[in-house]
């Protein structure tokens, strides 16, 4: 997506100028970074003691599902982090990802209906559970009147949303886009369903790429990035965290929950994203893996990475050992983690990884134990979702 290269002539560059994070580890990118360098907690990562009152009054909060509340908080925080730039409403967009949207509200209202009858079901149920509720609330509250979209490619949604947002800037449709992902799916029904499909770690620990991995823990929260057209951001003297260099998506066309075993569609997605970014595989400085700690998922991703990079590829990390799996928000959380990794010149280790699974082939340079110093370069961030969705994003450090 770099406008200074021949193939992409005329496409505008999209840079990251603001970060907003709401997670179990706390609010703000700093809390996420500290968590990534610390010991992983056990169990699901609920945002405990969540208080929406700094962003929504009581009536507003009652009419917004948690996934919308998290998104509003993260979006407003990202705008504040960017120094509240003046934005022309008509070219200000919103693109958010979510997988399970207002499932918590649907569960509560189903119980209300079952226990107390049809007449007690909230008239706000539909506008609370709809997947676009979060993006709509962000658009409404911040007066952003350009494209307002919601991406629902399951666990690839956060990554795909950022890619789509960068494209809106590249194509000249938007000058500014709030983008990322949000999820609040720790409802009893969802937890039971994931447990029954054997996706959750029985030990309550996500151990990406480890021989003893047995699934993930569920996280809730949101991460939102403010993207701006690079020229305008530079002109206003914005702090530029990173640049969105490229994105691609592909589909497995294979199975609803199991990945294509050879990882070929995921590998093709990585190659297409790198091509979009005009970055050679050898120039990639870090892979932020999807790495959910499931048997099949990590194996397919390892095969895909090996197909793209061979042996001697870039350092590979996965944030999920610390963050847990926030589904449609995960790609956005990991994009923020990648940006922070550039700023701090450190690649966080894969938390929970002690013994690498030999079945993975041994060609991945997994960062383990301690963070690794690096010179910031392009980061390939992978996300894969139920339905066979593959999303890959390439982020780069700011250039002068």
């Amino acid at each position, binding site marked *: 997506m770099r406008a200074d290269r021949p193939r992409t002539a005329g496409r505008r560059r999209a840079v990251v100028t603001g970060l907003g994070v709401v997670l179990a580890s706390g609010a703000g990118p700093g809390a996420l970074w500290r968590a990534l360098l610390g010991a992983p907690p056990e169990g699901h990562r609920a945002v405990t003691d969540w208080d929406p009152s700094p962003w929504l*009054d*009581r*009536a507003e909060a009652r009419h917004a599902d948690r996934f919308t509340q998290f998104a509003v908080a993260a979006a407003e925080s990202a705008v504040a982090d960017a120094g509240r730039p003046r934005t022309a409403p008509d070219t200000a967009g919103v693109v958010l990802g979510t997988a399970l949207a207002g499932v918590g509200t649907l569960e509560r209202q189903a119980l209300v209906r079952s226990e107390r009858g049809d*007449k*007690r079901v*909230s*008239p*706000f149920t539909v506008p609370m559970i709809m997947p676009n509720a979060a993006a709509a609330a962000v658009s409404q509250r911040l007066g952003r009147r350009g494209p307002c979209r919601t991406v629902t490619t399951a666990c690839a949604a956060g990554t795909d949303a950022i890619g789509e947002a960068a494209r809106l800037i590249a194509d000249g449709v938007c000058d500014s886009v709030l983008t990322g992902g949000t999820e609040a799916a720790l409802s009893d029904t969802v937890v039971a369903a994931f447990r029954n499909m054997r996706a959750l770690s029985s030990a309550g620990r996500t151990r990406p790429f480890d021989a003893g991995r047995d699934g993930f823990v569920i996280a809730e929260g949101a991460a939102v990035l403010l993207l701006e057209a690079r020229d305008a951001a530079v002109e206003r003297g914005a702090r530029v965290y990173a640049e969105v260099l490229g994105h691609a998506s592909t589909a497995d066309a294979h199975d609803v929950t199991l990945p294509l075993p050879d990882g070929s569609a995921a590998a093709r997605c990585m190659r297409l994203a790198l091509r979009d970014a005009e970055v050679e595989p050898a120039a990639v400085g870090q892979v932020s893996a999807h790495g959910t700690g499931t048997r099949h998922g990590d194996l397919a991703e390892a095969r895909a990475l090996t197909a793209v990079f061979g042996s001697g590829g870039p350092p590979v990390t996965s944030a999920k050992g610390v963050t847990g799996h926030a589904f449609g928000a995960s790609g956005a959380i990991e994009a923020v983690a990648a940006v922070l990794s550039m700023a701090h010149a450190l690649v966080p280790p894969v938390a929970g990884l002690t013994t690498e699974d030999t079945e993975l082939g041994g060609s991945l340079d997994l960062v383990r134990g301690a963070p690794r110093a690096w010179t910031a370069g392009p980061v390939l961030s992978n996300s894969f979702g139920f339905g066979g969705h593959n999303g890959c994003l390439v982020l780069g450090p700011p250039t002068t």
Partner: protein
Amino acid sequence: MADGVFEAVAACVVDVLQVPTGKVVEEAVFTEDLGATSLTLVEVVMALEEAFGIDVPEADVEAVRTVGDACDLVRRLS
């Protein structure tokens, strides 16, 4: 009317619409004075049904314009 209905209705209105108690007077129009929307007005009626153990027919909901209307409705159905 000192039957306690107004006080109980006002409590529901304050809770649902999150407005200051002082604004909830008999003449207050739900939409214009108290910021209610068609959906929040449904919520107010649901709260009244809950509080007074009544069942408000659909047609009566549409006739409720002011806090006084809501009080009259409650008295009629209780």
